[in-house]
């Protein structure tokens, strides 16, 4: 079993890393401090093909695989977690979804510009009363001739403000519970669709997290993805891929924190020696490295299975859970290694810590991931 990267994947990684170091990292502190969407960076990433990494070239994508995708998310997130999540949502939760469940017309019309990075997408499942309980949606889709009319509120939607395309999950009949959920493509600018509010967040402040309002919003029937009632399945299959992306994002954040800690520990002198000479610090660094490597390997495993077309719900949940908890632990310890300086915004580790927290929450909380995994174990 070869755990190394192929020369092609190495070349790909080197390009993304080079781009991340030169274009993404220098802007990261300002993106966070100003809560500013990194529009220029996202545009460059689109031109390079990073907004549709694993989508085939015929649909505007870069023709890569999931391993390349997780490599890219990790490298970008290491530089800037906000840019990482913007990229991950567009790739996994929008492009991949349309690629798997859209018909040819929908792929030509929506997927191509999204994969090329000419347009940005968002994934609208969560509602104020439906977070973990995502089957219990209240946003309704009422059939009216050759349209569906959407009514209701979505919240915590990443890319909500900037997105051109929204994948909206709505129920045609609340009585059917999750079997009533359908997925629709809604274009920004459709009357009755507006951004109600953008949240002020602890971390990933460069990505917008929004509350979206649908009020008598008429969506053409032809924008239905898959079948009526297939929406929940579509969401769950997409989340399998999305969780792999978030796992890679968390690995990137953790890695940034570890690298910063290594550099700091080598340079900071106390009691006449660099603190890297003290076992307490060395033990922390070793533990940080193990958790990151383990999380990365779980992420690669899930990605590899997804590339092979093998169902990977359990593996992607394990990757996401492991990576997000590793990121939280590693970034907390990184601040500890930095001591007082870790608490100060001049230094990057407090931002990594704030960015890491959300990875334990979105795309399925750690609690939900544990339920998924246990569910698979218990059969």
């Amino acid at each position: 079993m070869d755990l190394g990267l192929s020369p092609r994947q190495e070349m790909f990684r080197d390009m993304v890393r080079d781009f991340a170091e030169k274009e993404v990292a220098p802007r990261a502190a300002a993106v966070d401090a100003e809560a500013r969407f990194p529009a220029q960076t996202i545009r460059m990433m689109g031109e390079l093909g990073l907004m549709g990494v694993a989508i085939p070239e015929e649909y505007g994508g870069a023709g890569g695989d999931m391993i390349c995708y997780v490599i890219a998310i990790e490298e970008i997130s290491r530089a800037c977690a906000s840019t990482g999540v913007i990229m991950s949502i567009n790739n996994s939760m929008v492009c991949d979804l349309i690629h798997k469940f859209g018909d040819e017309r929908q792929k030509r019309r929506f997927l191509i510009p999204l994969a090329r990075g000419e347009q940005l997408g968002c994934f609208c499942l969560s509602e104020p009363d439906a977070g973990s309980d995502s089957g219990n949606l209240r946003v309704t889709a009422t059939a009216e001739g050759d349209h569906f009319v959407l009514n209701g509120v979505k919240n915590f939607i990443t890319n909500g403000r900037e997105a051109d395309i929204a994948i909206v999950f709505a129920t045609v009949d609340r009585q059917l519970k999750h079997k009533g959920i359908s997925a629709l493509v809604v274009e920004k600018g459709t009357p009755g669709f507006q951004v109600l509010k953008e949240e002020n967040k602890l971390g990933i402040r460069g990505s917008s997290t929004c509350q979206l309002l649908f009020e008598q919003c008429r969506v053409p029937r032809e924008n239905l993805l898959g079948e009526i009632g297939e929406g929940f399945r579509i969401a769950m299959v997409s989340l399998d891929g999305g969780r792999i992306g978030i796992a890679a994002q968390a690995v990137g954040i953790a890695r940034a924190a570890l690298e910063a800690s290594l550099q700091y520990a080598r340079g900071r002198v106390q009691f006449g020696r660099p603190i890297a000479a003290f076992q307490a610090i060395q033990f922390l660094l070793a533990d940080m490295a193990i958790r990151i490597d383990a999380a990365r390997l779980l992420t690669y495993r899930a990605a590899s299975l997804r590339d092979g077309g093998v169902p990977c719900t359990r593996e992607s949940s394990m990757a996401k859970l492991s990576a997000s908890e590793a990121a939280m632990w590693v970034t907390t310890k990184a601040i500890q290694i930095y001591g007082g300086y870790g608490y100060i915004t001049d230094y990057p580790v407090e931002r990594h810590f704030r960015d890491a927290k959300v990875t334990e929450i979105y795309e399925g909380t750690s609690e939900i991931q544990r339920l998924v995994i246990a569910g698979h174990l218990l059969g």
Partner: protein
Amino acid sequence: MRIVVCVKQIIDPELPASQFRIDASSNRQRPNGHPLVISPYDENALEVALRLKEKVGGTVAVVSAGEPSAISALRKGLAMGADEAALISDPALDGSDAFGLAAALARGIQKLGIPDLVLCGCESGDWADRTVGPILAEALNIPCVSFVAQVDGEDGRLRMRRVVEEGYEVWEGAPPLLLTILSHESNIPRYPKVKDIMTASRRSIPTWSAADLGVEAGDIGKAAIRTEVQQLTLPSRESRCELMDGEPAQQVTTLITKLRERKAI
């Protein structure tokens, strides 16, 4: 226009000094698994070639004389937009100096067919001798202009902006020419697109030995060197930076005091 770009693969020159180690037996930097990159000015040279090709049409070939690992540097060149690539690699070349390398590169370029332009980086990111380019021009018997920031080509005449101490000069010449390239706002190397990386990874790149190219054995390798590195030393630089504390006004006051102590002002 046909352009050949010579690239060298080196250990990433931007690694922090704390990770820099010397291998005393070879009198070179110890590779230590550090990432290998295309020498930065060679990338500028490649970018110049690609932009010229976009402007006036033609082909760009990228060539390297070095270790087998240099294949990945050539692949990146293809991914950036070069049309063909070739590696010159042979144990007989080990230990060659600039004259030996230039002899091998000259043969390789002759095998590709002498182009309109041969481009090299103005200096390599590791050794920075600035010799291979000009010597290669001599070996190919073509004129050479060094430290060029920009090139324009029209109607068979090339115009080059050569950077000098006080400013720049504009030189003209007819192809074939060899230019050594300096970085400039007009030649910031592009990032290869993902789909081009995928395509380039599937291309096969020929490797030519010294024998394949008909390089004279007496011109290459350790036996032919004209100068020798006797020793590589690390200059001792013990510098602990003193940071000024407080608000800007306080920082400035303290700084001035320290500068006066050091007689810097």
